[in-house]
């Protein structure tokens, strides 16, 4: 205590000077003229610089806590971004489908694919609509891009559709440009081809095949595929390889066309075929 008193006595001149300077500065800063505003700004700037310098000194405990919070936030944000991306894509997809539904002129039932098989010779998709939604066997399944397949089995709330990549699928098609008719089939391995087209027929790479009005199952004019390769199969017929307009791998939403084959026509053609045999 005595030492402190001695110390204060030793520096009393400087203490008094400091007190007087503080008083002077207090008076000085009580002014409100340009110079003092400038000095205040400079003082604030200097104080800010010092604070900024001090704030760059890391606190290990704060950093650990901050890291933890940031990691959690990062995960939450990643999730949100993922959900938003998903929602955006779904929005685009559904908007396209909605536009198609409004403009197609066909009676359509929208459906989600709940299951699909793409690696077998008889590939199918399962839809979340069934007889309760007025979906029946032989109705066509389409999207805004083109033909997907046809319903082959139904229950009250579900249905199964054959897709183009199914060995049992045979679709009467015609070239949109040259109106040449043919039958589209799946070879059971990887490619779709249009058969029964004569060697001299006008079919080129890039031509689009659509469903023909000769078909009693599919509504006519629905795009099915695009020609990617042409050649000669034998002396009489062409070999035409077609790529479907639908990307089955990413397909999620479809429409079932409420269009059933004409029963009378179907029965007549079936009877005629039987008689011929």
């Amino acid at each position, binding site marked *: 205590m005595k030492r402190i008193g001695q110390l204060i006595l030793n520096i009393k001149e400087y203490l008094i000077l400091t007190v007087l300077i503080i008083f*002077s500065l207090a008076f000085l800063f009580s002014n409100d003229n340009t110079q003092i505003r400038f*000095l205040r700004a400079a003082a604030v700037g200097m104080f800010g610089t010092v604070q900024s310098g001090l704030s760059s000194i890391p606190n290990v405990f704060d950093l650990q806590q901050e890291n933890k919070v940031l990691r959690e936030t990062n995960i939450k944000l990643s999730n949100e971004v993922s959900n938003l991306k998903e929602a955006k894509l779904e929005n685009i997809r559904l908007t396209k489908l909605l536009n198609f539904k409004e403009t197609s002129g066909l009676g359509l039932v929208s459906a989600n694919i709940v299951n699909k098989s793409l690696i077998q010779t008889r590939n199918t998709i399962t839809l979340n609509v069934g007889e309760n939604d007025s979906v029946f066997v032989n109705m066509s399944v389409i999207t805004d891009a083109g033909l997907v397949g046809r319903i082959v089995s139904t229950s009250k709330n579900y249905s199964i559709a054959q897709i183009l990549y199914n060995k049992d699928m045979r679709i009467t098609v015609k070239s949109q440009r040259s109106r040449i008719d043919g039958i589209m089939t799946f070879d059971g391995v990887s490619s779709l081809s249009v058969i029964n087209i004569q060697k001299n027929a006008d079919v080129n790479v890039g031509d689009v095949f659509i469903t023909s009005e000769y078909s009693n199952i599919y509504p006519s004019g629905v795009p099915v595929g695009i020609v990617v390769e042409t050649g000669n199969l034998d002396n009489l017929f062409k070999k035409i390889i077609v790529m479907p307009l639908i990307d089955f791998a990413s397909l999620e939403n479809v429409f079932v066309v409420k269009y059933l084959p004409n029963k009378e026509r179907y029965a007549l053609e079936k009877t005629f075929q039987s008689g011929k045999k």
Partner: protein
Amino acid sequence: MNFKYGILRNIIVIVLLILIQKTFIKVFSVSALNISPDFVIIALVFIGAREGKITGSIYGFLTGLLADFLSGTFLGLSSLSYTIAAFLAGFFKSENEKFLTKYFFLVTVFACSFAGNFIYYWIYFQGTPITFPEVIIKYVLTTSAYTTIVSIIYVIFPRRKKIERSFLGEA
């Protein structure tokens, strides 16, 4: 009694010098250079060098405050500069007080005046287009030099001993 008388004398002299400074300064100003001497600081340097840092700084502070009140523009600025100038003068305090009447006193006046003027003008010209070197050369150096020249009067004044005694309140 002598101590109180000395204080009273100091106060009277300082007040008179402030009044002269505020009223008749134009007579002594060099208007071409825009400079004028600071009579008050000479007295404060004398007090600081004669009586020490504490007394000098207290006189400086109160004198500056009075000058600021009388000028009514920039409260605190003169008190800050005079406090520091008079405090610095305390460093020149010596057992042998004869130096107060010698030419070395001029060096003391110049040094303390320079410090006081530096603080005064540096703050005074904040926020103006006048640069720091301009402040030093045009105002701080010239005013300090002029003040030092004026303080020569004290050193060469024939009756300086008498004035000295009266100034310090000595019997």
